[in-house]
């Protein structure tokens, strides 16, 4: 009979099976905390601030990565598989990795639309929503520009959506989450006033950025974005585009080039050398410039910008 030969072959143990059993024994007792997986350091920090001791938060994206290009690592699929909640920044920011990870995680509780899928963009009014869209316009986000986390006022709205999401998943902690939200928004309110004074020199300053991610920050503090190093979102610059940008910068007397830290410093540096502008690193996710946490990251971004503006003599 042939079938017994199949079972004979299947009896051969795979090394992984042994490893799996050993690891399953070492996994330990499940934590009583709410298991939260956060797509970016910003929403991770907010979930920690709001959830406090009630939550255990794991972050997928590294602060120095490009949020549009985060590698899909199966180790996060296992975290998502056992997660009670997934917090995303939203508006399609994480399109490169969250859909694939959700598929690999096999957890119905965190599918989009399920209670455990917490979308931090829920109360944000999106800007730059394309009225029509095709790929000739680059890698546009159909729901609008997703880089609203750079504006701390939007940060308050993100926090509200996260707190409500945590409460939805864990109603018994409602009071704690509301207190956490109150604490966090009070802190943000204080800082927002302070940042408004700090960022006063940015008003009217003309800048060029690498990627089109400044709109919320620029609107808040009065920066004027006159161009991007990318031809269109996600489309790398050609020599012709850079020459045009160079002329534009000279004509508009642009003294500040904002380089989001996940982008090539070489192009920005070359433009700066030819125009006399200063290159300012910008963290599009919390912790990218060093200081961790949402509040500290906003502070670091603004200090870097204000410092560069002071040195450049802009506008």
């Amino acid at each position, binding site marked *: 009979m042939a079938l017994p030969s199949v079972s004979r072959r299947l009896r051969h143990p795979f090394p992984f099976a042994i490893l*799996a059993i050993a690891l399953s024994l070492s996994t330990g007792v499940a934590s009583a905390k709410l298991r939260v997986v956060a797509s970016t350091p910003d929403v991770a920090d907010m979930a920690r601030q709001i959830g406090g001791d009630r939550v255990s938060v794991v972050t997928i994206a590294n602060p120095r990565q490009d949020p549009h290009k985060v590698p899909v690592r*199966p180790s996060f699929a296992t975290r998502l598989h056992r997660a009670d909640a997934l917090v995303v920044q939203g508006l399609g920011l994480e399109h490169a990795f969250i859909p694939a990870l959700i*598929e690999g995680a096999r957890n119905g509780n965190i599918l989009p639309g399920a209670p455990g899928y917490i979308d931090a963009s829920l109360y944000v009014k999106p800007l730059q929503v394309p009225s029509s869209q095709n*790929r000739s316009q680059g890698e546009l986000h159909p729901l609008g520009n997703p880089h609203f986390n750079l504006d701390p006022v939007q940060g308050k709205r993100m926090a509200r959506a996260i707190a409500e999401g945590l409460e939805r998943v864990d109603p018994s902690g409602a009071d704690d989450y509301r207190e956490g939200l109150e604490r966090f928004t009070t802190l943000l309110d204080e800082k927002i006033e302070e940042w408004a004074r700090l960022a006063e020199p940015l008003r009217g300053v003309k800048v060029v950025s690498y990627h089109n991610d400044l709109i919320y920050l620029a609107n808040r503090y009065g920066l004027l974005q006159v161009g991007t190093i990318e031809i269109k979102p996600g489309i790398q610059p050609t020599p012709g585009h850079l020459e045009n940008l160079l002329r534009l910068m000279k004509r508009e007397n642009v003294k500040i080039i904002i380089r989001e830290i996940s982008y090539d410093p070489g192009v920005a540096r070359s433009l700066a050398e030819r125009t006399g502008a200063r290159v300012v690193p910008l963290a599009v996710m919390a912790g990218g410039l060093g200081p961790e946490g949402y509040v500290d990251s906003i502070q670091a971004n603004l200090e870097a910008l204000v410092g560069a503006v002071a040195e450049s003599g802009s506008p």
Partner: protein
Amino acid sequence: MSFRFHVGRESRRGGAALALILAAGSPLPVGAADSDATTLHEQLEATQREAERTRDEVAELKRHVADLEAAARSADATPTTTARIAPVNADNPAVSFVVDTALDVSTQSSWQSIGYPDGWNFTLKNGELFISAPIDPFLRGYASINGTSDEGFDVEEAAIITTSLPWGLTLKGGRFFADVGRLPHWHDEALPFVDRPPSIDRMIGGESGSEGLEASWLMPIDLFIEVTGGLYDAVGSENLETLNDNGFFGRRSFQELNFLGRIHGYVDLSDTFNAELGGSWTGIPRDEERSLWALDVTLRHQPGTQSSYQGLDLGAEWMWNSQRFTERDDGGAIMSRIRRRRQGGYAYVEAFFARRFSVGARFDYSESPEGAADRARTASAFVTWKPSEFQRVRFQFDNSWGDQQTNQRFTIQWTAFIGSHSHGFAQR
């Protein structure tokens, strides 16, 4: 709010004027009193004028509000259409199309055993229509309809997958690429090279196309370990085609079906360095008594930061095949039964030097179904440039040698993705 504040401010001004008027009743020198009275009178008139202006503004605003309310009521009462009809395409699935075209030139005559055409050749390597969508809260489905220059259009995959089974289980059914090894179940356009490694073509029979049922389980531990079991008509697109073309659509005994077992793991060795390891067995218990064992290893350096685009992938896959060949006479009587064993595999490295630019090399070794007597080796070098996320140009040079004639081939591949195209987690 601003309106109320405005009225309040006017009232306060009026009140101040009134206070001044009352104060004017106090005894004062006659000249001074006249002067003050005149001033107060002027202030009173100014206040009255402001109050009138405010009243006019209030009236205007009230009219405006009334108009808006009336318009809203009118809109409610008089619909602009006779019925609310949902757009017919509201539930349409995501649709994308891949255009994968190439020009290749070989320096020597055809080496049929590993499928290289000779001379100059423009090819539509792959025109793939990919459709996917959730079916209901429990299932999602996808189909890949694929056309090439030499094979015409065919349904490459059409499968349904569960999305909400408990305990980390997933069930897949239909026609799909069986979970054999790593690259055998990748679509052509997702491969890191111009072509599928020749060893996969020879050992499996093209990509791991199959018709059947597959169950997989994600272990509930921190480490990613996935176990898959499957039952199929055939594994290997060429085998499936042969089977379905044989006049009885592959109908045969249960023990002549293809069985599959695979275990696949992933581990982060550091924040930027990770490894994947997989092992699989595919077999036919009776008649052919085939066993195909495969082991795959992938190491990746993925910093994911600005320097991340200077990452590195190392991948290798090795397969061992043991199969019984039966020769029958015209009456179906067995004339001879021979067991043949062969092996093959590939290894590659790809270095990502810039955001959209990579360079790699691959070595492939395979033996034909005849066994080690017909060996083929191919060394390849390839360069990939992605002008954007949605198009790719790749140059590849292959040098093949072995027990047949040496062959060199140069290929330029141009691939474009129309629409949102992703084969998801399995081909990340």
